[in-house]
């Protein structure tokens, strides 16, 4: 097509052509709405017959959120606390991915099961499960209904265990449950990452006499570091954008129940800034551990 052009110009043109279609979609359905809702953050929006009408109110939405809304800061702090689960998710999903990589009968079934939380977690079913089984949201640290009130507690009581021990067991079980729920995508990503490590590296290590543990710490783990960063970022975003998250609920209610769209936009921008800061810190902290494979 552009045969006469120098090579580097051609490369640029191709690069541009490759990015454009995706970018148009991105700009249209993310960037423009994003900017729009930033603008809303500085406005007081009212729905009128002719549509939305905004009056400019400057920074008052933001200052209200930060200094007068007692709930917002508390909820933000609460969702920061949830970040404790990120390392747990990473370790758990890495272990699970390692298990799933091995050859054994029923591997496909096991992999499908490991992916179930992803399928269910985002579907209609979740709404039913939430009202039915989980008295509290998935995100909270409280035990889920099934494992507290009627499910296992009764069983343990009949076994004559003390209340403290029962509480502890319930807590552990619900934590494991929470962990399995949040790790579906991460497991799959780790699995893909594990299979991305060329087998000749392991063969070489085998010939040199490295044992399984050495191979894990000297090959698998370093080669997986880009994937660990990816998964850490994904987990953080997943936790922050979880629908059961109190702050998301708050933003959603402000926007659609209380119809204060300007204020909801301001809240989501502030929240977004917080997430961005967390991610930047995370990235800078992990950056030096990333190993880029020299082919």
């Amino acid at each position: 097509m552009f045969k006469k052009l120098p090579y580097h110009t051609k490369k640029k043109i191709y690069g541009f052509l490759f990015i454009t279609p995706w970018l148009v979609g991105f700009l249209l359905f993310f960037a423009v709405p994003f900017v729009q809702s930033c603008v809303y953050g500085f406005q007081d929006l009212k729905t009128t017959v002719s549509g939305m009408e905004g009056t400019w109110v400057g920074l008052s939405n933001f200052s209200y959120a930060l200094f007068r809304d007692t709930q917002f800061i508390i909820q933000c702090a609460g969702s920061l606390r949830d970040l404790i689960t990120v390392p747990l998710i990473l370790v758990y999903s890495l272990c699970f991915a390692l298990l799933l990589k091995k050859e054994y009968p029923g591997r496909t079934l096991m992999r499908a099961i490991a992916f179930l939380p992803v399928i269910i977690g985002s579907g209609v079913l979740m709404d039913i499960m939430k009202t039915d089984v989980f008295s509290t949201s998935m995100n909270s640290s409280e035990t889920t209904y099934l494992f507290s009130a009627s499910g296992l507690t009764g069983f343990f009581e009949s076994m004559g265990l003390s209340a403290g021990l029962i509480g502890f067991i319930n807590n552990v079980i619900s934590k494991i449950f929470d962990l399995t729920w949040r790790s579906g995508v991460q497991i799959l990503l780790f699995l893909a990452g594990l299979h991305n490590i060329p087998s000749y590296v392991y063969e070489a290590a085998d010939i040199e006499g490295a044992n399984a543990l050495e191979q894990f710490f000297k090959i698998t783990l370093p080669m997986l570091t880009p994937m660990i960063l990816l998964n850490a970022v994904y987990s953080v975003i997943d936790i922050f954008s979880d629908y059961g998250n109190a702050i998301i609920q708050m933003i959603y209610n402000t926007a659609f129940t209380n119809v204060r769209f300007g204020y909801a936009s301001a809240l989501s921008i502030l929240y977004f800034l917080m997430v961005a800061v967390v991610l930047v810190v995370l990235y800078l902290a992990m950056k030096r551990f990333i190993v880029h494979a020299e082919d």
Partner: protein
Amino acid sequence: MIKMKKRKKKLGIDNRRSKIGNGLVIFLLLVLGAFMAFPLYYTLIQSIKPSEELFQFPPRLYVLRPTGEHYTELFQLMSNLWVPFSRYLFNTLFVSILGTLLHVILAGMAAYPLAKHNFPGKDALFAIILLGLMFVGQVTFLPSFIIISKLKLLNTYWAYILPNIGVSLGLFLMKQFIEQLPDSLIEAARIDGANEWKIYFQIVFPNVKPATLTVFIFQFVNIWNGLSKELVYDEQLKVVKVALEQISASNAYARMGSGMAGSVLLMIPPIVVFILLQRHVVETMTFAGLKEG
């Protein structure tokens, strides 16, 4: 010779340990699998409980008299709709598959120059794209709704499909995987006279097949579960999920059982897609022999 013997001995130990190891692995997988499969099990159980058991509180984890009545009820409800069920099914499959394919192809194409080319503003562009990952979707919903309506796309298939193309997650994953491809592979093709188009579709794309299929699975599940009811109001164009919601919402209590049955049926396609594709997802990359000197 001595080394050989040592090595054989070592293999022996490895084998013995791997038997205990395998037992442990399977045990662990079973326990964790039980946690993961529980919600599916619970829904299945609920969907085959007769109504009087269904409303027991606290819910029981087993069923005394299993029944298929909710499924037959659901199919009856479905066949009584004035839009045939097959129409909803076609809509959903069409939208999910086309939306997923477009996203996978376009995101992969965009990821290639971001990963392997150098151009001014590349990092800035990527940073902006990452914003898309972080921002909470609920608040951009209203502005994007307005855009869709301004583009006159409301109440068409495109209202479902187009917003799902420019999603950041797929591009992010693809870039991450393409970056790991050896540059020498691409250079070799370049020296052999392949243009960028050829390099992408014949070298890069086949080599990141696991990533592509991973993204395919994610996106399919996302679209399948995330089709929102606000964008399309023509009954002919609605998707299964919305139709099911309408059925169970019209009488939440009496139709709880059929709602459960519907949820079970809705889970089947994503699971099938996953099972069909997972083998390729975890395929080992094929450029093992390639090494830079």
